[in-house]
Each structure stands twice: as structure tokens, then as C-alpha cells.
């Protein structure tokens, strides 16, 4: 009997349950159709043609872009299809640099996997494309265009999920490549280092930059004292690399592995996550009391921070001034540990193990170094940590669990759930709720409303200080949507948590490669389970945190705490492009005028300032004496529109102010010339 919504797949009857394409229906039948360009979270591109199936009466069609229809009869693996797939893989391999054994993606590369699966043993085609240079300008991502198969996954990820669009297809024919604008390196464009492009890249064309060699070198240097911190999200994902279920809490094995690799001390970033809550919670309560700089935006995700600095400079004051847990750890450890261990500060090397590629960028920032000594020396991703374990030949699963060192190894559950989207908010609520209610959280410390993998979540809690409204976004597209609706005043919040990676740090691009959507769910559950297993659940209860304040900082938000645990933000330009010359100015002694044409100033009317200035210059016959240029972003977007006239930087510039300053400066110039 044929019902209205069934179809047959390789002879099996399958019901259509609202799937948008054949591919999803076929996967439901437990048949693994190979794909390069299909990701359930991205739009359909339909370019790789690996997902072809035979639909009777229609012939071979791409299943990812064919809607299912009742009564269809589908064959997924005919001789014709198998040989087509094999040919596609062979063609891709022909143009692909074959240095598999030394590639970052070795053993997790989809191209390699499919070549094995379809028994491609030799490649009959000759290489057509010339070798292209490697882009290792970014501290976070390495781009090797020679390994790109042009599936476009990264382009769509960056544009659709992150709303950044730092990379796109460029050139045509056999020269097609995926690249940042104008042939620049990734570090010179608006890339926020989130690494999500590398997470979906099926090959080694985009990979997290590896700092493994540098770490080995430090570990082998007898004059160095190398310690390590490990982020919450790492412990529920590292096991995947060694065949454990996603979400398995492997804290003890991870600590043991780090000790065996030679790290002198192993600490927990969750400890400084607790510290972050103390500082950020206190900061929030102060702002709430003064009714200023609200909502407070979280600042622990460096991908989000760069995104905000680039696209929403007006939010600089709203970002929490707290450093991220990684950087708080670095600053704390570099200040306190040398004395404790009787070593020189420059001999203390701090390595972080993070789920994240943007943490590499964060640690490299100048503002996180004191007298040329970086707070964090090296950042490794979970993947790199796994590779080191393998290189050392450690049998991860059979390591006897060990525990963290004290004092920076003791944490509460609040510091653990930081790794999930919504975790920071929940941890803040556990702090704030207690402070404003004036009594201990007993029994129920869970705020389930902020849990889950949805892109935007919101909730409100009523407290004696009034109702607090919270929003949580993960994925930068969602962040943009949220911020835009706040700008339009459609919504209003007191606390906003943002993570650049969908799902939060557990979905970070440094985590083991995965292709199944349920992996993130399991990792998130792992962290919440871990919270339950711990003795304490609120940061303010952490005895070592209390001790830290007693011995070092006095109280949360103190002056000293600010010096070590807080930071500042500056707007930051999106791309490094040259200037547009408007008027050349022929005399030797000419006045230089630059008007900012960066997006922010442009929107605030810098074009009319430029026009006003030039009109005035022409009217007063000063064309020879002034050189006028338009440039892209002074990195002072907040106070735009900006113009520089001679030595004067004019913020919040108007035509009147610009013209007046111009005439003053010309006068000074003339006087100088006449003496």
C-alpha cells in the first residue's frame, strides 16, 4: 500500500516528515550519503555533486537540493553513481596538494576519508593549477589555498552564520580561489578569528594555526618553568579524539596527560571564570545602582569583542571591562607565581589549552603584556593538545585520573558552565540573585531559561532590585540581530551574553572535528552534569577566591583588581586599505587634511564634510596649499565623524568646525613660512 507521504530508498519504505531535501530523508534511513558542500546549518549550494542519487524517471539528481516527494523511488548507490563519485574525488585530488601526512587535517579530512571509502587509489588527471602562497598572517587560522576544493562551506559560514563575510570566492576559471579581499592576509581584514570557517572546511585548506612545536620547545627548555591552564569546554570534548562519547567528562585524564607531557603545574581556567563572575557581577551591580552603561555585555569571548570593536564601537562602554578568564589567569599567575616558586618572571611560561582559535589572537594582543612579557605565552587548541598526547604515545583512555594543582585548580560549578552558551549568564545570576536578595542560594541554583542551543534566548527574573532582563546570543549573526533590535529600541535588556561560536565554547573551532549536530548537545550536557557533581555552584563560595581577595585585591572591583583583572576597548578598523587622494596640493609646504571614510564615520556624514571642505578650499583658491585625502577608519569610530586637519584631530566634526580649523591651520602655516 502506498501512503501519501512515503518514498522508497533502495527498496526501503521511508516516511517524509517535513524534511526539506532528499538528503535528510536518506540519512534518516541510515545511509551515509557523501557530501562536501552540505551543512544543515548553512544554505544549500549544490556544487560538489557528491550527493547524487538516482530517482526513477528523473535520472541522477543532487539529493541536497531536491525536495522529497511522495512515491519517489530512489537508488543511492548504483554502479553509475559510484563511478561518478569516484571520478569527482579523483578530479578534486588532482588539483589538491597531496601532502596528507604532514597536514593538520590528516585523519580528520573529509577528502581523504572519501578517497579511502570509494577506493581511489590513483589519480589519473594532471594538476592544472599553479601553486599559491600560504597565508599565515593570522595568529589563529592558517589558510592553504592549494588544499581548497571550492566547496564554499567557509564562505557561507562566515557570511551566513557569523555575518562577517571576510572571505569569498575570487577570480574565475581555473584561477578561482577563496580569499580575503584584495589578496590581503586574513589578519588584515575583518576576520574575527572565530575559526568557524576552519571548523566546516572538509580539507586542510583552513586550519587552526598550530603552536605545538613552540610548546614542545618550551617544555624541553630546562631553564623554563612551564605551567598550563585548561578551559572548561576542553574536558568534555578531548575524549572524542580517543573514541570516547562526546560529552564524556575526562578532566582527570586530561590533567594526567598534561602532567605526563611535562607541565609543572596544571590549573583550571574555571577558577578564573569564578573570578570573572566576582568582578563582572560586581561591575554589573554598580552600573545597575548608578543606572549607567546598561546593558552590560559580556567580554569573555575575543571573537565577539573584536566583532563589537569593529562593527559596534558605540558599545565599547557597555562591554564589561573584565578581562576574559584566560587573560585573568595569565595576569594573576605572572604576578603571583614567580615569587611563590622562586623563579624569575621571564622563566615562567604559561600555556593555555582552549576550545578556541580566537584565544590565540587574544593572547597575542599588546595590551595583554607587561614590559614586553606576555601574560599568556602560548595557546593550544583541544585538537593540538590531542595531537601532543598522540605524539607522546600516551594511552589517553587508560591514564589514571589526576587532580588539578592548588590554588588555581579549585572551582565551583559556575566556572564550569562558562563553556556553554548561557553559562556565563547563569553564573552571573547565581551571584547577582544572592547579592540583591541578601540571602544564600539554597537548593536551586539552576536557571534553566538560559540553557539550550537556540541562537537567541531571553529571560527575566524578578529580584528585590526590580526585574532583570537578560538576553543570550551565540553565533555572530544572532549577535548582530540582537544588537540591531536593541538599537532600534524594540527590546531592552540589563545583561547581554554573547559568544561568537554557535552553542558557545563547546562548539569552538579548536575542538575535535565533528560533523554530527548532536555532538554539541552532548558536550553541553557534559558541562551541566559536571556542575552537578561539584560541591559548590556559586563563584562567591569558592574559598580560594575568597582567599585571593583577602590576600591580594581587597574586594571585588577594587583599584588593584582593576589593574590586574580589567581592560579597555578601542574601535578597530575592518580592513587595511590605502587612502583615496582627493586634492593633491602642489606646494612644498602644504596642509594635510584627512577625512575618515570608514563605515562608522561615513554613516555619520563624513562625505558631506569632505565636500564642504573641498568646496571651501576651491572657493578660497587654496587648492595648491592643501592636500586632501579620504581614509578608512582612524580607529576612533565612537566619536566620529572624524577628520584630521594638520596636527589637529577633529572628533564629532561638522563642516563649520572643519572649515574654521582649516583656516586657522593655514594661517599658522603661512606664519611659519614667513619667519
Amino acid at each position, binding site marked *: 500500500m502506498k501512503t501519501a507521504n512515503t518514498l522508497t530508498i533502495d527498496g526501503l519504505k521511508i516516511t517524509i516528515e517535513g524534511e526539506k531535501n532528499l538528503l535528510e530523508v536518506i540519512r534518516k534511513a541510515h545511509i551515509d550519503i557523501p557530501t562536501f558542500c552540505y551543512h544543515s546549518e548553512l544554505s544549500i549550494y549544490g556544487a560538489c555533486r557528491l550527493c547524487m542519487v538516482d530517482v526513477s524517471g528523473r535520472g541522477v539528481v543532487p539529493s541536497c537540493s531536491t525536495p522529497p516527494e511522495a512515491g519517489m523511488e530512489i537508488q543511492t548507490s548504483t554502479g553509475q553513481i559510484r563511478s561518478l563519485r569516484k571520478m569527482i574525488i579523483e578530479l578534486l585530488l588532482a588539483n589538491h596538494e597531496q601532502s596528507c601526512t604532514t597536514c593538520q587535517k590528516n585523519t580528520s579530512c573529509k577528502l581523504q576519508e572519501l578517497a579511502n571509502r570509494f577506493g581511489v587509489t590513483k589519480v589519473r588527471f594532471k594538476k592544472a593549477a599553479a601553486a599559491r602562497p600560504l597565508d599565515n598572517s593570522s595568529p589563529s587560522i592558517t589558510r592553504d589555498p592549494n588544499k581548497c576544493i571550492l566547496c564554499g562551506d567557509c564562505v557561507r559560514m562566515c557570511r551566513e552564520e557569523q555575518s562577517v563575510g571576510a572571505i569569498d570566492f575570487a577570480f574565475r576559471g581555473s584561477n578561482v580561489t577563496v580569499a580575503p579581499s584584495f589578496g590581503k592576509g586574513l589578519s588584515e581584514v575583518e576576520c574575527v578569528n572565530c575559526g568557524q570557517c576552519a571548523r566546516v572546511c572538509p580539507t586542510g585548506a583552513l586550519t587552526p594555526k598550530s603552536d605545538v612545536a613552540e610548546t614542545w620547545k618550551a617544555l624541553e627548555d630546562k631553564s623554563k618553568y612551564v605551567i598550563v591552564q585548561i578551559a572548561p569546554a576542553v574536558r568534555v570534548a578531548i575524549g572524542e579524539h580517543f573514541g570516547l562519547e562526546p560529552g564524556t567528562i575526562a578532566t582527570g585524564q586530561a590533567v594526567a596527560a598534561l602532567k605526563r607531557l611535562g607541565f609543572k603545574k596544571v590549573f583550571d581556567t574555571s577558577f578564573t571564570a569564578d573570578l570573572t563572575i566576582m568582578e563582572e557581577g560586581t561591575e554589573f551591580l554598580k552600573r545597575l545602582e548608578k543606572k549607567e552603561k546598561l546593558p552590560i555585555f559580556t567580554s569573555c569571548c575575543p571573537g565577539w569583542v573584536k566583532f563589537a570593536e569593529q562593527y559596534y564601537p558605540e558599545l565599547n562602554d557597555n562591554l564589561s571591562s573584565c578581562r576574559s578568564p584566560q587573560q585573568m589567569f595569565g595576569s594573576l599567575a605572572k604576578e603571583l607565581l614567580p615569587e611563590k616558586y622562586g623563579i624569575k618572571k621571564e622563566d615562567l611560561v604559561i600555556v593555555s589549552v582552549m576550545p578556541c582559535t580566537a584565544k590565540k589572537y587574544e593572547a597575542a594582543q599588546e595590551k595583554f603584556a607587561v614590559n614586553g612579557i606576555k601574560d599568556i605565552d602560548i595557546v593550544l587548541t583541544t585538537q593540538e593538545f590531542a595531537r601532543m598526547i598522540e605524539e607522546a604515545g600516551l594511552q589517553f583512555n587508560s591514564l589514571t585520573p589526576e587532580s588539578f594543582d592548588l590554588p588555581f585548580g579549585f572551582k565551583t560549578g559556575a566556572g564550569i558552565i562558562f563553556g556553554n552558551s548561557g553559562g556565563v549568564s547563569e553564573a552571573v545570576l547565581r551571584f547577582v540573585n544572592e547579592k540583591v536578595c541578601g540571602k544564600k542560594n539554597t537548593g536551586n541554583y539552576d536557571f534553566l531559561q538560559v540553557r539550550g542551543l537556540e541562537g537567541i534566548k531571553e529571560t527575566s527574573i524578578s529580584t528585590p532590585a526590580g526585574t532583570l532582563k537578560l538576553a543570550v546570543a551565540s553565533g555572530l549573526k544572532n549577535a548582530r540581530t540582537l544588537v540591531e533590535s536593541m538599537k532600534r529600541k524594540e527590546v531592552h535588556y540589563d545583561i547581554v551574553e554573547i559568544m561568537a561560536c554557535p552553542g558557545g565554547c563547546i562548539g569552538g573551532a579548536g575542538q575535535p572535528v565533528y560533523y554530527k549536530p548532536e555532538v554539541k548537545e552532548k558536550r553541553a550536557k557534559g558541562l551541566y552534569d559536571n556542575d552537578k557533581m561539584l560541591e559548590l555552584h556559586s563563584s562567591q563560595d569558592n574559598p580560594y577566591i575568597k582567599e585571593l581577595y583577602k590576600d591580594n585585591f581587597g574586594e571585588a572591583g577594587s583599584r588593584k583588581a582593576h589593574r590586574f583583572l580589567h581592560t579597555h576597548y578601542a574601535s578597530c578598523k575592518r580592513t587595511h586599505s590605502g587612502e583615496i587622494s582627493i586634492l593633491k596640493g602642489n606646494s612644498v609646504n602644504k596642509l594635510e587634511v584627512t577625512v575618515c571614510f570608514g563605515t562608522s564615520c*561615513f554613516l555619520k556624514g563624513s562625505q558631506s564634510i569632505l565636500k564642504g571642505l573641498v568646496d571651501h578650499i576651491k572657493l578660497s583658491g587654496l587648492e595648491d596649499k592643501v592636500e586632501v585625502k579620504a581614509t578608512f577608519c582612524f580607529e576612533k569610530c565612537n566619536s566620529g565623524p572624524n577628520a584630521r586637519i594638520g596636527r589637529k584631530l577633529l572628533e564629532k566634526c561638522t563642516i563649520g568646525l572643519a572649515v574654521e580649523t582649516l583656516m586657522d591651520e593655514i594661517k599658522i602655516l603661512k606664519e611659519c613660512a614667513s619667519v
Partner: protein
Amino acid sequence: MTNRNHRKFEEVCRILEKNGNDPARLIPVLQQVQEVYRYLPEEIMSFVATSLNISPAKVFGVATFFSHFTLKPKGKYIIRVCDGTACHVKTSTGILDALYKKLSLSEKINTTPDMLFTIETVSCLGACGLAPAVVINERVYGQMTPEKTSEVLDGIIKTEEKQKEAVNA
């Protein structure tokens, strides 16, 4: 000279306005901008990206996709020497070499410093009947020899010089 940059820039602003700053009109915008500058300067493309509110990578992608667009400045006169089969057989390479020599150019550096000439080779101009053919801007010259090409160039150079004198006088 002083005013030329400004005129061009104002022209770009007008183009953007005329197209309503509409991201869907990126291609016509680039086309019109290229008419102004005779190529697409990087800074101007950044400006176009800002005004249309699209990512610079997208603009770069479109600008490099269509062979009609060029990202390097070209001379006022673009000399296209055909190297299609018909022209090749009739020794177009001789013409090309003579041109390179006359203008001190090469395959790599193909625009004269005074921005007057750019030499390009094309595979078939569709004028095989006239082989070997040379096209200068829009005008086709058939059955060329190195000598005849050189004469045409001398003619152009002379007109240009006269124009310059007229401006200066």
C-alpha cells in the same frame, strides 16, 4: 592635475547615488567606476563596499570574476595584439616583440610609466580574415607588420604631444 582626483571622486559619489546605494547594483556600479578610473583602484572598491554596505571580499570577488574588470591601472591606449591561431601563423609574435621593444615594455610590465600605452595579447579577436590583427582601443588594424604598427604608434604619440602643448599654451 590637482583637480582630476577630486573630479573622479565626485563622479564616484554621483555614480553611487544614481544607483541608490543599492547592493544589488554592484556590477553596474563597478562598471561605471571603471569608466572613470579606467581600472578599479583598491581604495575605491573599499569605498564602494562601505557605501553599498557589503563586505569588501564580495566586491573583490565580483571585480575579479568578470574579465571585463581590471584591477591594475591601464594606459590611455590599450593595444591588443592577437595571438590566435590565424594571427600566430602569420607571425603576430614579430609585431608583439617590436612593440615591447619600442615602448620598453615586457609581458610583466605592460603599461608605460606615462600611462599612455598598455600592451595585451588576446587569443583571437575574431578578425582572422585580417590576420595578423592589432586593436588599439576600439579601432581594428588588419594585416599589420612591425613597421606599420610602429607608424600608427608614432601618429598617436604626435597627436598626444600636440594636445599637451595646446593645454599648456
